[in-house]
């Protein structure tokens, strides 16, 4: 895969620093501030420049899990998503849309957040959607 530099926006606080992320063999090897960014003009803080290893952490989840007999057990995507779709469909029918809620993610992209609220409103039929926006 070789080495490449990718322009990203920092994922921590709301400043929105531009970052140049150096990637080698699908691993982040270095992060530096983007001098072209009007927000940070090349600067970064310790979180922005060094707190990226979580991306490669061995503890990352790599399979869906479903609770069976009290324990979370590995499942296929098909199993997990069908289980969720069936449950949510039955809650909507039996208890009404107001019986469901979503905590959205203030760390995720605008595109994810747009789809999240579209899912809440158009699919589940409710407005019980909020995030850690308030904390």
């Amino acid at each position, binding site marked *: 895969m070789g080495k490449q530099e990718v322009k*990203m*926006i920092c*994922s921590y*606080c*709301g*400043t*929105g620093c531009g970052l140049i*992320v150096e990637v080698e063999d*699908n*691993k982040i090897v270095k992060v530096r501030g983007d001098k072209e*960014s009007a*927000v940070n003009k090349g600067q970064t*803080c*310790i*979180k922005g420049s060094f*707190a*990226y290893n*979580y*991306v490669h952490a061995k503890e*990352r*989840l790599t399979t*869906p899990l479903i*609770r069976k007999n009290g324990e*979370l057990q590995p499942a296929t995507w098909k199993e997990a998503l069908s*289980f*969720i779709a069936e*449950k*949510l*469909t039955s*809650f909507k029918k039996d208890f009404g*849309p107001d*019986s469901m*809620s*979503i*905590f*959205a993610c*203030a*760390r995720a*992209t*605008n*595109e*994810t*957040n747009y*789809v*999240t*609220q*579209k*899912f809440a*409103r158009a*699919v589940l*039929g*409710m407005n*019980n*959607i*909020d*995030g*850690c*926006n*308030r*904390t």
Partner: protein
Amino acid sequence: MFGDGAPTNRFEDFDKAEVLLLIGSNTTDAHPVVANRIKKAVKNGVKLIVIDPRKIDMTKSAEKHLQLKVGSDIALLNAMMHVIIEEGLYDKDYIARVSEGFDELKEKVSMYTPEYASEITRVAADDIREVARMYASADHGMIAYTLGITEHHFGVNNVFDIANIALLTGNIGKEGTGIMPLRGQNNVQGAGDMGCLPNQLTGGLKVVNEADRKIFEDAWGAELPAEVGHTQTAMLEKMTAGKMKALYVIGENPILADVNMHHTTQAIRNVDLLIVQDLFLHETAKIADVVLPARSWAEVDGTYTNADRRVQRTRQGIEAHPNTKGDWQILCEIATLMGYEMNYNSSEEIWNEVRSLVPHMFGGMTYERFDNEGGLNYPCPSVDHPGTFILHERFHQGIELKEKSRFVPVDFSPPAEPTDDEYPLTLTTGRRYEQYNTNSQTAYYPEKIKLKQTEETVDMHADDAASLNIEDGEYVEVASRRGKVKVKAKICKKMQKGDVFMSFHWAEVPTNSLTIDEFDPISGTAEYKACAVKISKLA
């Protein structure tokens, strides 16, 4: 009020201000690059006034530090307005043209003499006068604040009072002025702007407004609910009452992050179906019924909106593990399984749908422009529009506004849980420099990085430690009416007597088992910033 949940100006305006009030913001630790910008602006002549219960690092650059009592901001701001009105330092022409309700404000603040406010805030009356004159006399007075303002049961009133003083002094609608809420997470602004709020659709349109809903109903081919939904805190209440069947948590760890952990855990355990979509098996994921492995920041394309309304493009740099999925892909697949077909080929396709639905906000922001021009500040209605640097510029165009901004006078009320003989100390919580929230990401620093702090401490004044016979570095018990934790004591010069400080970064010391579940009635934001605790030596 003129406020619509967005910062009025840009970071660039810090350089153009004459006086900057920094209220309830530990900028150095929470927004380090903004702190650097402010410090540089100070070197170039901006006068910085820090209003904070702690002697935080920013005070080193400040002309003046008002070390007020935790949660007494309204008393202070009202007293400043009292001085500004009494001494005629407000912008009479401006408020006549753009505002209404001045007389009510004047009456409300009349009782808040600096002497009276001094009793509540512990700030000297003459310091209140001096700072009021500095801010009101400046041609360009700016205010930045963070969670020290909002994380109170009167957080919305705090925000109203900041808006009151800015409006009173003509500090809305031109460069080097305005109000900047510094957002704690990379996309708090964007999540709200996209409609992840119980009362708001995409682009700030309103759930209760039929015409607004219709835009989305037509585009989505679905009827939308007209009633405002529950805030996160109200949802937790419904869970406690057994009235919530399902909770879907995306990229969040509420058990560790929310106030009164014991209560939060019980509430969440009460739902029949808990879905957690995240990177790690954190505390909330561990009690889930279904856990979905999502993709991280470096593995996705898209845009974020920062704390100055700037939408910026981030790009995928890493191929994710093949058995993970991106957040929106997962939601699309579930929707489709539920009989509502949702498919997108790229984040750009989603963004273009947003642009088409609320063109007055984002219409002119294409991915191509982000690539060529960098970030763009909304509103940006057309592709030849440069983006909006300053909101409410009409306030300074010398015209009488048809729709005026109303002052919202507010009264001081103390934090919900006062200290008493049994719980004599005020615990205020916040963030530290190297860690981020529940530390599920910042736990992975490379070994070569020598961290200043690797475990939680309870930061306290030397006199409080001495009276309890506690030494620096000693493990102690901190207890509130809701829980207790064992934690290392740190004698800290930032603290004033009677206050102690902790963060909530380490699961080993779950600080939010102490915090109180009192919420602002309008925003639902919890009072992380104040509760009563006691500290005792370990046996």
